[in-house]
């Protein structure tokens, strides 16, 4: 479908004029100048990478292009013609397809229906052709190579699969420009490879790609040109070949980053703080392991291996069937997050929006939620103390927010993640479980978070880190545990771990 449907279209694409020009774009939000005089130029058949720290304005620029926000100033030209994009419909009719950073699917619909949401195939009488929708969706997935069940209810799928649906959707009908805002944030390396082969096929048809990612290796693999934004301003646009990692990072954050994976401690050999034995839930079978104070226990698995399930069982969120969990020696009542938290275990969830953020509440209330007891005197809050504690974390983590009163929904994804991490660190825990902690986080913040995790372990916390990022796993973990299909298939020390060994265990 991809190719057939497009051949006619591709012939119409004139490769000599830019597919898209955005000139002098400016956008202000209350209290924030998100974009100031930004230029961007996409060539047909080329992959253009857009980079920058969290909150640099990448998503804002994309949303202006997609008709989600209206720009304050500037002009947009598509294939040389000036256009006004006011609504998403305008963007779609200009042939602009966007894979958004936040998943934009209807959870109640099936995967297949979501893919054809923008344009239902209908019969002559105007009735929806459900069979065709399902078959075309299945065919589309086959072609791309993604393994997603087109009949599944979208909301039941893990984030990674939802992301694949998003990507597939952008490819379902013809487009001139495909924009991808961090499309790979929850994909495994194999799936990323599949995505790249799709992108190459698209570019060969003359389609222009705008690609946003915080992953430098991806950029160096797929991009032709790189534009860097910082604080809403255009910093540089250069061919990829003119960049090295260092120059790119310097452009992005305006300084050099030292070691991405710092190490300030020896191997963790403290007391056992987490003990799990014989744990089974609906998705997990017979899990047993220990985590010690002062160590980082990395947990690797392919999508659907059950890491998120384990994380939620550990903090008493999901009910467990059999088995015991002890935190610092005390047994954890199943299905009771309150005792779990008071025993000193917290979870930084994988899905920020539905399981972490209180979108309508200010940054301050979001951050201090788990540790209000610290600022309370017989339940009465000392707001001054709370405020300064929150401000301290905002400064330390460089959370970009105009004020502590800002609704957290207006922060960029990366900054939201920092607030959520701070929610736990402010409380002071014995064990922290982090599920995909750096998803959607820029290099600068990433290195800060790595340093933080390292420091937390050094201070005697046990850190259990679920991650799909091999470098992060190998770089930070003291021990590595691999899961597959709800079981632990291997546990190894930092020194014995290799990429091969880990992946073999994950497939088993």
């Amino acid at each position: 479908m991809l190719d057939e449907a497009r051949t006619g279209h591709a012939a119409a694409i004139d490769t000599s004029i830019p597919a898209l020009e955005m000139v002098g774009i400016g956008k202000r939000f209350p209290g924030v100048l998100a974009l100031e005089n930004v230029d961007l130029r996409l060539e047909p058949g080329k992959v253009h990478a857009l980079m920058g720290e969290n909150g640099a304005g990448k998503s804002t620029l994309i949303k202006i292009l997609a008709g989600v926000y209206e720009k304050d100033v500037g002009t947009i030209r598509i294939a040389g013609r000036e256009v006004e994009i006011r609504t998403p419909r305008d963007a779609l009719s200009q042939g602009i397809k966007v894979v958004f950073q936040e998943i934009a699917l209807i959870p109640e619909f099936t995967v297949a229906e979501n893919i054809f949401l923008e344009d239902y195939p209908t019969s002559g009488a105007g009735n929806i052709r459900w069979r065709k929708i399902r078959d075309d969706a299945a065919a589309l997935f086959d072609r791309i190579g993604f393994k997603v069940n087109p009949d599944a209810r979208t909301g039941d799928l893990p984030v990674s699969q939802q992301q694949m649906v998003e990507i597939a959707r952008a490819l379902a009908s013809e487009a001139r420009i495909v924009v991808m805002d961090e499309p790979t944030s929850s994909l495994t390396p194999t799936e990323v490879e599949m995505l790249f082969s799709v992108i190459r096929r698209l570019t060969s048809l003359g389609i222009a790609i705008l690609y946003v990612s915080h992953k430098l290796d991806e950029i160096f693999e797929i991009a032709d040109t790189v534009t860097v934004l910082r604080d809403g301003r255009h910093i540089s646009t250069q061919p990829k070949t003119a960049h090295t990692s260092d120059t790119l990072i310097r452009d992005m954050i305006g300084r050099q980053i030292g070691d991405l994976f710092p190490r300030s401690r020896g191997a963790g050999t403290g007391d056992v703080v987490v003990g799990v034995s014989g744990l089974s839930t609906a998705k997990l079978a017979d899990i047993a392991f220990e985590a010690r104070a002062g160590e980082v226990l990395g947990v690797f698995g392919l999508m659907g291996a059950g890491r998120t399930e384990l994380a939620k069982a550990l903090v008493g969120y999901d009910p467990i069937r059999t088995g015991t969990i002890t935190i610092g020696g005390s047994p954890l009542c199943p299905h009771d997050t309150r005792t779990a938290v008071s025993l000193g275990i917290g979870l930084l969830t994988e899905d920020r929006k539905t399981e972490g953020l209180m979108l309508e509440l200010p940054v301050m209330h979001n951050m201090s939620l788990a540790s209000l007891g610290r600022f309370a005197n017989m339940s009465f809050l000392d707001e001054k103390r709370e405020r300064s504690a929150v401000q301290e974390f905002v400064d330390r983590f460089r959370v970009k927010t105009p004020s502590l009163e800002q609704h957290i929904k207006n922060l960029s994804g990366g900054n939201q993640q920092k607030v959520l991490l701070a929610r736990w660190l402010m409380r002071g825990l014995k064990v922290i479980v982090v599920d995909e902690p750096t998803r959607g986080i820029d290099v600068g913040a990433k290195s800060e978070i790595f340093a933080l995790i390292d420091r937390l372990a050094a201070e005697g916390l046990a850190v259990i880190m679920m991650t799909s990022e091999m470098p992060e796993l190998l770089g930070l973990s003291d021990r590595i545990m691999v899961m597959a299909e709800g079981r632990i298939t291997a546990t190894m020390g930092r020194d014995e771990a290799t990429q091969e060994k880990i992946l073999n265990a994950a497939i088993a």
Partner: protein
Amino acid sequence: MPQSPDLALAPRPAPSILATLARRNEVALLICLLALIIFFSLASSSFLTPRNLTNVLGQASLAMVAGVGVAIVVMSGEIDVSIGSLAGAVGIPLVTIMNMTESLPLGIAGALLLALVVGVVNGYLVAYLGINSLIATLGTMFIIRGGIYLYTGQRSIPDTAYLEEFFQLGNGRFFDFLPYPALISLIILAIFIYVMRMRPFGRQIYAVGGNPEVARLAGFDVRRVKFICLVISALLAGVAGILLSSRLGSAVHVAGLGFEFQVVAAVVLGGVSLAGGVGSLVGVALGVLILSFLSNGLGMLNLATEWQLVVTGGIIIAAVAFDEFKRRNQKQ
């Protein structure tokens, strides 16, 4: 990069019809309805007669027609509580025009015109001015009811044209069997079940209610969809009001008081989530029927009002709790 393993995620075959049926949330409601019917048949000899069963269908028709409209609005993520007042109000143009012109079609046209106006106002307030739908329709609910009282001086308007069609509309029976209101409500139900399932617009309603931001990104005109839903709801409330008016043979100023409560309760009982985006019209129909059969059956048992209220309340809670329990068990 090692080759990707094929991890159990191969597309499943399309699920069988039977399996889909068993998973539907309507099943719990259907069980409740059947249990009620069986119970009342055993308890009262006059319950399971064709006359009584068709009677109940006729009695359920008002809530059924209006319920379809409210359900659609709720699925689109909004709510409409002005329907009770509106159903009462449409009787005024209906009867007045009939009395003047001796024509039922003209009266109906006048009634639907009023409903349309109210629907457009509700829709404009909610979709285009962005006023929360509960606030907007609670406001129009008060305004319309006050308007009825003010206009009629709190008197009913009798039908003095004595049109036979007007009497038959609410009181007659199709082939001497099915009351016309029941027939009309079933037709409307069927049309909207078809729209919600087979027409892109129906899917847009679900999408808009499920996640308006996503719907907007998919290029839907969210405001237009919501606007149309509120207009549909008002028109259907208007139809219910016309049927009610015919059953009452006049424009009664207190008609439809508390109707919105009944309808919203039936809609929620039918499994439509107030958060929007979820629910089916079959469920709504079952919810309406459960409440109607309950009211009829308890009457047959000669239960005092106070016991009827207590039992009805208890059964509503039990039915929703059962539905919820079933849903949770399925997830496990």
